[in-house]
């Protein structure tokens, strides 16, 4: 053994160096580390599970949008516009009953930019709109099935920005999607006609300013929409031309009747 070896061994012979204490402390740290790691893993697993539980109903809703749950055939608009018209008519008759019994029906197919399409171009249609009721009758109904704009995080944002306390609007989450119920008062623009020849209307921001005489030129509308998580919207509108008063009683259909059409699974898009 060399001199240097002997000196190093003497130098290393420090009684203060306690390997047992070091091992004990290291093992305690290791146990603590494993406990923390276990907790983190459990929390991560719980977070993933929670995320799955939150996302699952939405995913199921989206998948269910793509198939009928009523047993009725769901028409594919692009290949069967007659089928979607029939589905809309049946749904309206089922929920609105006598109000639309024998009423004339008009179906309009719409393209990506909401342009009207002839039946010959049905394959290009991305939405459909049906009108029920004679054009000169006071009450008419419209049913729209097609794409919705993006679903905002806050359902309340589906209400029109111009809505005032006089024009109520509510939006609520349901199992099928967000149901939006809104009302509009429109007034005929006396000197303006639409390109098709019909009268033009504009939304009245504050109907309290209207006089009873103005009501003859007024159109009252109630919209009930279901915006599904899949981005498909079904809207049912009742239009009352020249309502005797701007009140709920002016509508022939109840909100429940309109909602029944809006949430009808047979009107799901496919």
């Amino acid at each position, binding site marked *: 053994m060399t001199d240097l070896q002997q000196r190093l061994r003497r130098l290393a012979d420090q009684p203060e160096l306690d390997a047992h204490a070091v091992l004990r*402390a290291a093992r305690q740290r290791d146990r603590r580390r494993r406990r923390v790691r276990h907790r983190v893993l459990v929390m991560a697993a719980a977070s993933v599970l929670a995320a799955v539980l939150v996302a699952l109903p939405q995913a199921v809703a989206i998948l269910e949008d793509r198939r009928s749950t009523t047993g009725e055939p769901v028409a594919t608009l692009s290949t069967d516009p007659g089928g979607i018209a029939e589905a809309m008519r049946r749904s309206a008759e089922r929920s609105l009953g006598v109000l639309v019994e024998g009423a004339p029906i008009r179906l309009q197919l719409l393209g990506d930019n909401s342009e009207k399409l002839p039946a010959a171009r049905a394959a290009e249609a991305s939405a459909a709109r049906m009108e029920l009721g004679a054009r000169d009758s006071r009450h008419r109904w419209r049913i729209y099935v097609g794409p919705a704009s993006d679903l905002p995080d806050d359902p309340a944002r589906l209400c029109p920005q111009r809505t005032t306390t006089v024009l109520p609007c509510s939006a609520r989450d349901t199992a099928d999607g967000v149901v939006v119920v809104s009302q509009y008062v429109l007034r005929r623009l006396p000197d303006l006609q639409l390109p098709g020849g019909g009268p033009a209307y504009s939304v009245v921001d504050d109907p309290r300013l209207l006089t009873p005489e103005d009501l003859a030129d007024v159109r009252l509308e109630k919209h009930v929409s279901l915006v599904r998580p899949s981005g498909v919207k079904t809207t049912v509108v009742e239009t009352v031309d020249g309502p005797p008063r701007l009140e709920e009683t002016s509508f022939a259909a109840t909100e429940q009747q309109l909602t029944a059409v809006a949430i009808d699974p047979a009107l799901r898009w496919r």
Partner: protein
Amino acid sequence: MPDLDEWLAHGTDRLLRFAYLQCGSTELAQDVVQDVVVDLLRHRARLEREVEVIDAYSRRAVVNRLRSVWRHRAVQQAHPVPPPAVVRHDDAVVEDLDLQRRLARLPARQRAAVVLRYYEDYSHRDIAVVLGCTESSARSLLTRALQSLRATAPETHGAPR
């Protein structure tokens, strides 16, 4: 071949003294070896498949951790190197203190090479494994370390070449 627990039971004390010879502080040596043991326990599954590397792995970890501590001034200040505890009162004490002072003046890798060679009895090849260099570099480190030690020594050590 011993498993990790067996290695720790017998090897921790040796590792602790190996660390102490390089830093001259019992507190720092214990802190560093504790970190290394926690690291060994964390990699238990891998190390138990390769128990033959634990010696070299743990020593390399001690050398690297000490270098990291010395680089980190804040930590260095938290572990000021104290004078060695004097428990013996003979001429050897004076010699040992002198050796420790001269070891402390060596660069970290040279100091590690000296301790590995003359305390751990490692071959040049094993020193190269621990320090992550070639065998010739390990020889060179050791040669320069011994030259420095001799140059500052009051008398020659008679260390083997």
